[in-house]
């Protein structure tokens, strides 16, 4: 395949995404040093991490430019599995309070 001479454009095109990812990371580090409760901090950091992941998936991994069917085949099922893992928290809190059985 002959060089098209357009290969510099992608870096320039995705530089805004790069800087947004760096900015999100910077915000996370800033928030970590504020006096939030652990639960509140985790919630905020997780939200920012999901935003970073979405940007990386859609733009760096070009999922936004693939067929919609690929996106819908991969992502909803993955999110579902990850959400289902949240069932562990009741047992974790039970363990924290040393209760023998879940309420």
């Amino acid at each position: 395949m002959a060089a098209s001479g357009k290969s510099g454009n992608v870096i320039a095109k995705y530089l805004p995404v790069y800087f947004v990812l760096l900015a999100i990371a910077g915000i996370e580090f800033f928030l970590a040093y504020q006096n939030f409760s652990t639960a509140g901090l985790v919630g905020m950091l997780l939200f920012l991490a999901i935003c970073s992941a979405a940007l990386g998936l859609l733009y760096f991994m070009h999922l936004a430019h693939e067929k919609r069917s690929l996106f819908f085949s991969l992502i909803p099922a993955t999110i579902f599995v990850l959400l289902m893992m949240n069932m562990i928290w009741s047992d974790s809190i039970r363990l924290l309070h040393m209760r023998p059985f879940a309420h």
Partner: protein
Amino acid sequence: MAMHGHGGALMEESPYSIPSRKLTMWLFIISDAVTFGAILFAYGYLRVATPDWQTPFKSASIINVAIMTFVLITSSLTMLGAVDASKAGDKPKAFRFLASTMVLGLIFAGLHIREWFGLFDAGIKLSSGLFGQTFFSITGLHLLHVITGVVALAVVARKYSSGSLTPGHVETIGLYWHFVDLVWMFVVPLVYLTNIAR
């Protein structure tokens, strides 16, 4: 629409209009994402259930992690450059971008290992309680992915330069590398930033 392949065998069109290698990499990424999700959830479970959880990370560690994050995000950008250059047919440029990505990956690994030795000196090891076990498991698994990725990048770079691999292969390994960066976006806040020494 069915097509005839070698020896008259009937072949289906590629699903999702992407090559099989790319689809396979996506499926691997999904399975690996769920694996990391499970290990991070297990870490969260133990952390919530442990009232006296260790929080050992002082400013020097956090600055190190910030540098590591910058290095890894930048390596994703150079990987984009490699994929783009390979699609444009510019082999020398693609090789340079791949080499840059590998160097950044090795810098990340070096900083990570240096951090580990710092923790060893502070008495925190894989065997030293729940924090040590979860921290070194999670970061060790991620570091293994980084090192494996660097090796894979080296193989792809060499073979693409010699002509035995195609731009599609560069794109496929690029997906893996971006995934490694993506996982780090979750490891940093959950494992490091919630365990800052106050």
